[in-house]
């Protein structure tokens, strides 16, 4: 049982008939995810990887009792897709789309909150519950079922670390890709309590990056965690004042630097790794000490 979803979670895909939507629906189904339907306006009646396509999220929910939705629609339509999911009663919304305007996300985050839903992303790889289900685009073959929880602001760097853990024989419980945008539905502070309560998770790995204050903000919560927390921050060689890609990674006014984040985490008791390759060794040591 994962912290957010498992093999029983009923999932729909918004943008299911698109290039990415259809490819990753196939991958999700192959991994064991219960994809019960999909949505593409005007494509009602089509079938993708065994999942029936509907015109609206409301129709899909009525027909399939879907609980979670994964969004693959283009950036300029993403705000409406997120709001549509929340208004149709979906409680777990994952938005993979990158490049959504910030002001659109301000509105979407507000609507999601007012409907009592949880948004993961945008610009995120989704979540995976090892050996059970994956919701999003994280490659399934890198996982090994086990007891390490991960939450990360970076997509591909997370794959890197999960892969290294699996090669070292260390399995994972739930892996959450929080996303790289300035405005995110879910942050470290929202995920940490879930991992602390989760009986399957024995230690947590947090992967942060430069920019923003999400890492610093999580420090007081980390201090209260009953499980070991291992951390890594990317972007130590990034110069200040330059935006690193479409992500929220930018250092401004001396704030959001790798140093300030590592310091905040170390003071909160996090074992901070210097390189991704040493993470498996650190995890083994932390578990042995418990």
């Amino acid at each position: 049982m994962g912290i957010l979803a498992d093999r029983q979670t009923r999932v729909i895909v918004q943008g299911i008939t698109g290039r990415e939507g259809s490819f990753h629906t196939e991958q999700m189904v192959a991994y064991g995810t219960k994809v019960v339907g999909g949505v593409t306006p005007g494509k009602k009646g089509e079938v993708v990887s065994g999942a029936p396509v509907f015109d609206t999220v409301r129709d899909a929910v009525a027909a399939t009792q879907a609980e979670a939705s994964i969004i693959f629609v283009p950036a300029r339509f993403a705000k409406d897709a997120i709001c549509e999911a929340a208004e149709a009663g979906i409680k777990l919304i994952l938005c993979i789309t990158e490049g959504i305007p910030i002001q659109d996300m301000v509105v979407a985050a507000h609507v999601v909150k007012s409907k009592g839903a949880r948004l993961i992303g945008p610009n995120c790889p989704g979540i995976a519950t090892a050996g059970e289900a994956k919701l999003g685009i994280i490659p399934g073959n890198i996982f090994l079922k086990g007891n390490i929880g991960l939450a990360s602001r970076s997509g591909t760097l997370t794959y890197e670390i999960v892969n290294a853990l699996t090669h070292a024989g260390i399995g994972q419980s739930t892996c959450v890709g929080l996303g790289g945008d300035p405005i995110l539905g879910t942050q470290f502070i929202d995920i940490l309590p879930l991992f602390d309560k989760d009986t399957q998770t024995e230690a947590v790995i947090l992967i942060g990056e430069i920019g923003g204050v999400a890492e610093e903000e999580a420090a007081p919560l980390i201090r209260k965690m009953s499980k070991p927390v291992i951390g890594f921050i990317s972007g130590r060689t990034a110069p200040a004042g330059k935006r690193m890609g479409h992500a929220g990674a930018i250092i401004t006014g001396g704030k959001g630097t790798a140093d300030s984040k590592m310091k905040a985490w170390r003071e909160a008791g996090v074992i901070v790794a210097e390189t991704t390759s040493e993470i498996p060794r650190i995890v083994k040591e932390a578990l042995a000490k418990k």
Partner: protein
Amino acid sequence: MPVLSGQVADSPEKVLEVARKVGKPVVVKAQVHVGGRGKAGGIQLAATPEQARDVASRLLGKPLKGLIVEKVLVEEQSKIEREFYLGIAVDRQHKKNVLLFSTEGGVEIEELAVTNPDAIGKLYLDPVRFLSDADIDAFLKNRNVPDPAGLKKIIFELEKIYRGMDAELAEINPLAWTAEQTYKVLDAKINIDDNALFRQPAMAALMEESETDDIEKEAHRRKIAYVRLGGEVGIIGNGAGLVMGTMDEVGRAGGTPANFLDVGGGAKAELVRNSLELLLMDPNVKGIFINIFGGITRCDEVARGIIEASAKVQIRIPMVIRLEGTRVQEGQALIGKTSLIPASSMQEGAGKIVELIRKGGK
């Protein structure tokens, strides 16, 4: 917005002309996209038009905080009684826009936030409606500002500009209260959200003009997320976190990253080919490390892009490639047919490329 009468000029002679037209003592402001201009000597007063010309000739064509001053703004001087800060920005943690106001203007707001956070008033904007009269009246009450009605008009205007232009920051600093008992906007800064440029065509055109590095300009034309860093190891990766992680790893192996280049999610062969061509334009690049961990990105697409690029241009520098994730077998099979050097991990790849460059690319 109540701005001062003034004009932009690009030569000392033009400055003289503008200053004469203003007919009063002026201030000459260097027009560069950088904060802290005043402290760096980029804003100077001139009592006469001739003085303005001399000041301008000392600024124009010279670097200011690393950027060449090509234009100056010539404005009449104002008699400042008080300086305020007024801005709207995105608050990432609250997921809202926030209006910031301080009676201690003139300084950098980041500094003030550290030294005296209580001096900054905050008003979170409703995500789905504009500010109302009552919102602003309540906010300004007890703040002891002159002419609250005048200030309210400026706040309304600023919100309209901020929302209308898809900004992530719009600030007036300082907002001056002058001896004439009116507000004047003395300096302002606006950051536009890159992701919203598709619906802000006027801003998109300005962005192209403002880029100074030729390769960065070309990257923007090709819609590639690229930042030039000046080192010798060219880097291509997918996902900002992984690219930064790769830069860090190259640094640890003793190399210096030439760039940040993120092909993003779901890169097609054409984008990879374009990216590779872009890196080859940088004469400092002595070797290239391509690090892909495919999720939405498919390794075979990336491999195809690399092969297409090598067929088109002769690549004389070493290239190390590491592929992992979605469709990795198909990708590796394609790479196996070429002379590219494979790596099985990020660490190994970073080590290999740094070593190959050290050996002189053989």
